[in-house]
């Protein structure tokens, strides 16, 4: 029943999974081990640790081990995802020659994650596929005007194009790279600004900075706050949006169009106009100043999402609704059983965009909360600047910035399709 390739791919996936979990656990073990340095230390202190029977291991060794773990994670996780997607094509034998080429490249990449097992199996699978699907040669008849110099010209053009695109890509990437680089520097490494540090060796990556940022500035609390607010608002938004979009798209009642137009009109009004009154409502009418309610309640509905979901609901044929009605299905049941499963991609988009919005929120949380209810953006802005000397601890600030940026990047890379779909219709960030 099972062919050879399926077994190979299962072995690869399994070995990569073991590798990822192993490196995660190792990283966590050493992260727990690290000691946060004392307050107001100007110079680096070389610390040493005892673990698993080893005595007086210097911190640089720990740094090398942890950096290797992160490197393994960075290489293995995308490969695991790709291999998992490929597994299906291998199982159904719908693979192409390109799959084989990809698998060989993946095998070569696995060498860098020190996963020899996966390397061998990947390259073996790739070669098997390449043998099974030989290259099909199609010879085109060269026409008169496709001369050699034109080919060279187009080649040079493509090269220039890639050159410019790469430059723009580098300009976009540089701030992220700089952020991660600074977050890993030691104090002496950072203050030695006379020569440009464009990279760090593994032994100089100070992972302790992340622990310092999380504990010293109480950044863990702010992450917890943000997660609470993001989770609650997202659930609330999805709930209210589904009900409202259903009413606007399926139920027939008087005044429906009028209410909908009014809601659309409010989208044109800038948010700054209603911030002032909302501030009075929240702090004086409801007495919610510096509580979670102030951060959650105003944001558990959004006109744009209602509009967005209504468009999706409208595409579902009306005959489905009528058929369900004939069978004696109630509206709510129809919504749960038919509409929501069909509109699932849109709901995922709404969920991700809403969670991202809370994660990046700055203005409103700043207005209605004080330091114990801050969200991550505000904490990032205020926590790492010494109020007396106005000096900023850039290393810790960048470590915190990395902590809140990397999850977003991971979510974006996995859910790119959903995010771009929703953003295309939403307008500017404001």
């Amino acid at each position, binding site marked *: 029943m099972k062919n050879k390739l399926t077994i190979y791919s299962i072995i690869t996936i399994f070995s990569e999974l073991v590798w990822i979990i192993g490196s995660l656990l190792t990283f966590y073990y050493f992260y727990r081990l690290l000691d946060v340095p004392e307050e107001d230390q100007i110079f680096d202190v070389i610390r040493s640790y005892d673990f698993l029977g080893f005595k007086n291991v210097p911190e640089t060794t720990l740094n090398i081990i942890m950096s290797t773990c992160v490197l393994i994670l960075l290489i293995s996780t995308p490969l695991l995802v790709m291999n998992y997607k490929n597994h299906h094509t291998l199982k159904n034998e719908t693979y192409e020659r390109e799959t084989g080429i990809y698998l060989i490249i993946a095998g070569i990449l696995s060498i860098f994650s020190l996963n020899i097992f996966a390397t061998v199996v990947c390259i073996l699978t790739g070669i098997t596929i390449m043998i099974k699907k030989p290259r099909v040669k199609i010879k085109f008849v060269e026409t008169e005007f496709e001369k050699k110099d034109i080919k060279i010209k187009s080649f040079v053009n*493509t090269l220039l*194009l*890639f050159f*410019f*695109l790469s430059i*723009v*890509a580098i300009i*976009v*990437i540089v*701030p*992220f790279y*700089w952020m991660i680089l*600074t977050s890993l520097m030691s104090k002496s490494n950072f203050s030695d*600004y006379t020569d*440009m540090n464009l990279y760090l060796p593994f032994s100089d990556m100070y992972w302790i900075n992340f622990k310092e940022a999380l504990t010293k500035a109480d950044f863990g609390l702010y992450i917890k706050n943000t997660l609470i607010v993001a989770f609650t608002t997202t659930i609330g938004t999805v*709930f*209210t949006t589904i009900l*409202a979009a*259903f009413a606007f798209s399926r*139920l*027939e*009642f*008087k*005044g429906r169009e009028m*209410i909908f137009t009014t809601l659309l009109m*409010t989208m*044109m*009004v800038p948010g*700054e*106009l209603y*911030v*002032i*009154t909302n*501030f*009075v*409502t929240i702090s*004086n009418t409801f007495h919610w100043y510096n509580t979670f309610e102030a951060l959650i*309640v105003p944001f558990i*509905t959004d006109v744009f999402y209602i509009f967005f979901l209504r468009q999706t609901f409208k595409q579902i044929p009306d005959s489905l609704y009528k058929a369900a009605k004939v069978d004696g299905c109630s509206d709510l049941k129809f919504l749960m059983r038919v509409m929501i499963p069909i509109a699932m991609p849109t709901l995922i988009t709404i969920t991700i965009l809403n969670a991202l919005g809370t994660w*990046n929120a*700055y*203005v409103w949380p700043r*207005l209605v909360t004080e330091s114990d209810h801050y969200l*991550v*953006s*505000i904490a*990032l*802005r205020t926590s790492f600047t010494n109020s007396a000397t106005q000096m900023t601890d*850039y290393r810790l600030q*960048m470590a915190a910035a990395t902590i*809140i*940026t990397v999850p*977003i*990047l991971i979510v*974006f890379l996995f859910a*790119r399709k959903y995010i771009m779909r929703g953003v295309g219709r939403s*307008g*500017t*960030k*404001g």
Partner: protein
Amino acid sequence: MNKFSTFKTKFNDLRWRMRNYKNDVKSLITNFFDKIYIGRIFKLNFFKGMLYLSPALILILIFTLYPIINSLLMAFYENYTPVDGMIDGFTLDNFKSVLKPGFLVAIKNTALIVFVSVPISVIISLFISVMLNSVKFLKSFFQTIFFLPYVTNTIAIGLVFSLMFDFDYGLINSILEFVGNTFVGDFFDLFGVTISPLHWKDSQATYATAMTTLLIYTIWGSLAFKIMVFTAGLQNIDKQYYDAAKVDGTSKWRIFTKITVPLLSPMIAYITITSFIGAFKSYTTVVALFGETGRTAGSVDLRTIVFYIYGYIMNGNALNPGELSRGAAASLMLFGIILVFTVIQMYVNKKRVHY
């Protein structure tokens, strides 16, 4: 066994009787409501629709519709105290007191951001998306990278920029110093321009350098969305136009100006106007680079209009009588400016700018 069966029959009997009671009560209530003509409401479509709408609608009423009306009124209140809601009457003084010299500086800053960053970023993103559209290999890879600035936290990346433009530790100054020591620096020296580290945003920064830093960050952050919309628009252009141009041997630049730009013009107009609106509301970019004061340590003022609106609420200012009214007046002015652009957008949308 026998005992249990008697219990079971008793229990069933009880259940049956309970159900009868329930039905009796139900019919009693419905009859009562039907008699006084309320029962029909529950069967009305309107009631049902409202039931589904109510969670969203109540929140929108409280937090969106009511504030719009209330802010309109509040801008005309005299000595409004938010704690007890007392007012002394209605005046136009709020608008007058908003328009002090500081606010005019804010208008100038905002106008600079709007009218410099938006055209530049539209043009750059147009070129990038045209380039992106003509490659096949690695296209989605580049698309993913170019979209990154949109999803990330404005504050976090703004702080990174703030570090990159730092005088001592910054990457930009390192590059400037490096370039200044090579032959490029010598070449520029011939024209009397020395390439050396600049005070971008610290206490010795001038208005020009601080503004340049802000503009660079604004443009960097706003490219992502535009590139995405433009690449989507370019894919919808009919390939026939390009094939026809190819047959005629048209040059690349001519194809760009005579085919791509005219066919993309609705998109360009839409993007330009929405970006204008967005740039008028710029706030977090300034906070990320220069802190909540909106000024450099050398007191170069970079505050925007929105800074003024929030300035009336923040740091306990809201409790002072009349402050919130001034904030409302300032936000009404911003609304007026944005309304003009919205009207232009609706007009343009109707006309569908084409060739």
